[in-house]
Structures are given as structure tokens and as C-alpha cells.
């Protein structure tokens, strides 16, 4: 596959399944953790919950895991991050090189956004915080079960949840990639076309354009696959991807005000839209530092890490007035947006009759 950026594949966070149907096939799973008591618990519980369809092997170090992998094949390896000598991230890197088709998941007691990004960049399909309760373990089991029974198809495929899908789109856009993101759930299949980092078209059923894009991003679960880019028959989307994602987030949030009760919080804390794009010794890690969506009258509709929404609204009003003045002066027509290049990143303000949007993206430079 010619994808330059590996998309984040995150598992639908449905929470505990309760009784899990017995998978038809025996699954071979290797758990790697230096905490042997945790491994004992996992082995006992997960074997029982899988009705013995999971064949669980355990290793208490990365070295031991690599030795086992030389003689046994597995469907899934679940790795702890904090291990002495060779840690989980290093192990993931080795596994990605030696066993590219092997599914990998990370389970850690110390979940941080940085660690999550690093693990996903190193090939983990799933990043889970170590649970502290039996219910939490059930959720972990359900997620791993979903991962291990998910059938690999040609091309990259992952399970999606909201942030996961947004991350993929964000990475494709920031990486200025061209691809088709095919998204499906049980009822419908849609496509999002990204060309040179611009979202140019979306289609789902009879729906096209921004409405289709929003519908696809509002799906509560399903699967996606990144495909090679082929130009669509038409281009129905022109806006900036940041705004499209934010608008989709707003529409989704408005359409699901009464969300289902949260499951046991076993996933890592919901991260801000973020990504790691390894590009060599030095990499740039853009992340959305602030976002605000208001109505045309300035009433906040959606905000994320916005310290003072009122102040931001005031700024956008000033921008609108200034844009009107300058637009008329130079005959440039209707104002669309203002992009601000900052020492630490950039900000974009867009003013439409029915909404105002402000987003600030911070760019951090990291040395490998």
C-alpha cells in the first residue's frame, strides 16, 4: 500500500458486551506484561469469557515475547508499555517490522496522549488504559474480541469511533495526501475524497457534499478503509477541512444530545484531535489547541479548550467589521475567512451569516 501516513484505528467504544458470543475460530493471543499477577487474572477471566475460544499465552518481558513469537503464530499481541529493558513501544516497533500482519494492541496503566500517539504510530491498532475493575476488564475483553475477530481485508481497514475517524481525516489533510476514505456501517456505505489534503467530495447513498460528510462523521460506529485516490465524478465540497470537521462535530453533537450513558471509562482519556506524523528525525505535531463555534449572533454552540469564549466572539466581531471595511474598499467581495500565522502555529476565523468559527492549531517540533 502506498499510504504515507498510517491512520489511527480505534475501536468502537461500546462498552461491556455482557455475554459475548463464542467466536467460531480459535484465537491465539499473546499478552506481554511484566506484572505476572495481571497476566494470571487476564488468562483466567478472558479464557472464561471467551468460552475457551481464546488460546492465551503470556510473556513477562519483550524478550520472552519475541522468543515465543519465533515458534508460535498469533492473531493478536497485547503489549504493556512500561516494561524494563525493552519497553512496549520498542516491542511494537520490532513487531511492526517482523510481523507486519500481526494485530497489536497496547494496554497501559499510564495512558497519556503522547504515549497513545507514539503507540499508534508504531503500529498498535488499539490503545487501552488498564482497567481497575472487573467491569473495566469486561470492556477490555469486548474491545480485544472485536479487534481479534475483525477480518483483515485488502488495504488498510480499521474500526472507527468518532475521534478515530476524525484523526484519520486530519492526518490525511495535514499530510496533504490524496485518498478515498470508505466508511461503512451495517446500513450504509459512503466515501470521502481527499485530494492533496483537501476534502473535495463526500457521498453516502443519495446524499452528497457537506451533508454527506456530516452524516458519515456522525456514524456512531462502523469500519473504514483508506483506498488509493481516484478523482470523483464531481467535486461537491470546497471548504477548509478544519471547518468541515468542526461543523461535522457540531452537527453530530447537536443531533445526539442524549447520548447513551458512558461505558466504563477504560479507553484512554478522550484526546484532543491530534496526530503524530513521523517524517524523519524531526517531526511536526500539529494539534488543535482551541476551537469555538458560535451562532451568527455569537452564542457559543461548541467549544474546546477555549479559555474565554466571550473574548473570542468579540475578536470575531472585530474581524468581521474589519473584513467588511477592507472588502468594500478593495472590491474583493464577500469575506470568507481569516488565517493568522502565529509563532506557535496558526489560527483560522471564519464568519458566516449563521455561524462563526475560530480554531487555533499549535505546531510543536519534536526531535526523534
Amino acid at each position: 500500500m502506498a499510504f504515507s501516513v498510517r491512520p489511527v484505528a480505534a475501536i468502537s467504544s461500546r462498552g461491556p458486551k455482557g455475554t459475548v458470543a463464542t467466536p467460531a475460530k480459535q484465537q491465539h493471543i499473546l499478552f506481554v506484561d511484566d506484572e505476572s499477577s495481571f497476566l494470571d487474572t487476564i488468562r483466567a477471566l478472558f479464557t472464561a469469557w471467551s468460552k475457551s475460544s481464546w488460546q492465551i499465552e503470556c510473556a513477562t518481558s519483550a524478550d520472552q515475547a519475541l522468543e515465543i513469537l519465533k515458534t508460535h503464530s498469533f492473531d493478536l499481541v497485547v503489549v504493556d508499555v512500561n516494561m524494563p529493558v525493552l519497553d512496549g513501544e520498542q516491542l511494537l516497533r520490532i513487531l511492526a517490522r517482523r510481523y507486519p500482519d500481526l494485530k497489536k494492541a497496547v494496554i497501559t496503566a499510564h495512558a497519556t496522549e503522547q504515549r497513545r500517539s507514539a503507540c499508534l504510530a508504531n503500529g498498535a491498532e488499539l490503545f487501552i488504559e488498564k482497567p481497575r475493575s472487573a467491569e473495566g476488564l469486561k470492556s477490555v475483553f469486548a474491545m480485544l474480541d472485536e479487534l481479534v475477530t475483525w477480518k483483515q481485508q485488502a488495504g488498510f481497514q480499521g474500526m472507527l469511533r468518532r475521534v478515530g475517524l476524525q484523526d484519520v481525516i486530519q492526518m490525511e489533510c495535514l499530510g496533504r495526501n490524496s485518498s478515498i476514505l470508505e466508511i461503512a456501517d451495517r446500513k450504509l456505505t459512503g466515501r470521502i475524497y481527499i485530494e492533496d489534503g483537501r476534502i473535495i467530495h463526500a457521498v453516502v447513498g443519495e446524499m452528497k457534499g457537506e451533508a454527506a460528510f456530516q452524516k458519515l462523521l456522525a456514524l456512531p460506529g462502523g469500519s473504514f478503509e483508506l483506498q488509493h485516490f481516484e478523482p470523483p465524478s464531481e467535486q461537491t465540497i470546497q471548504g477548509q477541512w478544519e471547518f468541515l470537521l468542526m461543523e461535522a462535530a457540531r452537527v453530530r453533537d447537536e443531533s445526539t444530545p442524549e447520548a447513551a450513558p458512558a461505558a466504563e471509562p477504560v479507553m484512554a482519556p478522550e484526546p484532543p484531535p491530534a496526530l503524530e506524523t513521523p517524517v524523519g528525525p524531526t517531526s511536526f505535531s500539529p494539534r488543535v489547541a482551541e476551537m469555538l463555534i458560535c451562532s451568527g449572533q455569537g452564542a457559543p454552540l461548541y467549544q474546546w479548550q477555549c479559555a474565554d469564549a466571550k473574548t473570542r466572539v468579540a475578536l470575531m466581531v472585530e474581524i468581521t467589521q474589519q473584513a467588511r471595511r477592507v472588502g468594500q474598499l478593495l472590491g474583493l467581495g464577500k469575506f470568507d475567512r481569516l488565517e493568522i500565522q502565529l509563532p506557535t502555529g496558526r489560527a483560522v476565523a471564519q464568519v458566516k451569516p449563521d455561524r462563526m468559527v475560530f480554531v487555533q492549531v499549535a505546531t510543536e517540533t519534536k526531535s526523534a
Partner: protein
Amino acid sequence: MNNSIEQWFASCGVVPGILGCGVRHPDGTCVSQRFHDSCSRERLDQALQSLGDSLSAFSTHGLAPRWLTWTFEQGQLRLVLRPDGRLLALAIQPNTPAAENLDLLTEEFLALNFAA
């Protein structure tokens, strides 16, 4: 007009899609050049003054712009702030070589040596 600006304005003239450009000096004086009938020097100066004055609004809001791009239906306006206080306004048409080279033009302006 300063030689550096004069030469740079002249070089801008060969880039298709530039409507006009102007520079505001730290003392408040403006020099501008138009490359298209739709963009008079007087209006460019006014826009430059107005946008220059509005920059303080951003710092009030905790933002320190290096440059700003105002996008309209029929054009873009790039405003570039140099550390020495000089301010450039560059009005361009969309989907033109000027639009494609906006960042390059910005870098050129930032690298201009006004002491020469």
C-alpha cells in the same frame, strides 16, 4: 521610495495575479503600487492603515500574528508584519500564480534589507 521596496514592487509586477501591494513604515507613512485597475493606490493605503491599526486587537486577544491572510470571494489580502514594524499588504486574485506563491512573496518581503 526606498530602493529595496521599489525593486521588490517591480519584481511583484511580473507575478500574474497581484492586484496591488503597499508597505506601511513604522512612522505611519505608506507606499503602494497597483497592478490592476480595480485596486487604486489610495484605497490600498487606506486598507493598509486600517488593517495596521487593527493589529493591536489581536495582541489584546493574546495572538501575535506574523502574517494574516484575509480571504474574500474575489481575492485575498496578505498582511505581513516585519519585526522592524514595517507592514506589507498584498492584494491578489485567487487561483493565480500570485496565490500559489503567496508564501514565497511573504518570505521575500521578510528578507528585504531596508538598510541597503
